[in-house]
């Protein structure tokens, strides 16, 4: 096994990314889909920070990740509010049942 370096972090990030994607694709419940999105953002953040350490040695990557965290927080709050509204309207948060507009 080689010493841990950039590649390890990138592979880890890729793995977390596809797991998050899997949650987004396969879960019925909207809240779980939201969790998948958070995981995807985290995978991207690992990439940012890994590059900021191994490739570009100033802190640009970390700062970018910081802004990603800020945006994720805002997104989670708004998304949950929307989910709660959907629940109020349809008594369910399953994405496959939210098909009022489907023809």
């Amino acid at each position, binding site marked *: 096994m080689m010493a841990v370096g950039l590649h390890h972090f990138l*592979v880890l990030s890729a793995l977390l990314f596809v*797991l998050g994607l899997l949650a987004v694709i*396969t*879960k019925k419940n909207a809240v*779980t889909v*939201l969790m998948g999105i958070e995981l995807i953002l985290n995978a991207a953040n690992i990439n940012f920070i890994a590059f900021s350490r191994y490739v570009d040695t100033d802190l640009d990557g970390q700062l970018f990740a*910081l802004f990603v*965290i800020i945006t994720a927080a805002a997104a989670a709050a708004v998304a949950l*509010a929307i989910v709660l*509204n959907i629940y109020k309207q349809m008594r369910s948060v399953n994405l496959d049942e939210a098909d009022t507009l489907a023809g």
Partner: protein
Amino acid sequence: MNYFDLTFYVFAIGAVVSAGMMVFSRNLIYCAVGLLFALASVAGIYVLLGADFLAATQLMVYVGGIVALLLFGIMLSVKFTGVELRTGTLQMLPGLMIAAGLFLLLVRMVFRTEWAVNQPGEMLPTTSTIGKRIMTDLLIPFEIASILLLVALIGAAYMARRERT
């Protein structure tokens, strides 16, 4: 295998296992707990990468904020008294195939790209540098981010409040 590598594997395996638990568990609360541990492990990964401030921010925002929020969301949006908090899955097989394919592509790209790797230096405290950069060249993004948060706060509070008729 040294100290750094050991820690990396502990956190990496922790992150992947708990993320897997999040994806494959049918119980919503288990999903949330899986996400919690995955996020905490990612914070550990940040520490390994010398991003101490970000790791603490990660814990604070995700664990203290987003996961708690998600748990509230789950409990408010499911008729959970008497019924178990379960979620079904859709298109599991095609999903798995696509995910596996994408993962292979990403790994291929990671290993085939010639990264301009610099030998990382000593891990220095990042907090004051981050603070200074935010207050100088990143001032405008920072202000916009604060306005975004304010807007999200007001918007979320407005949408989630009880209708008064």
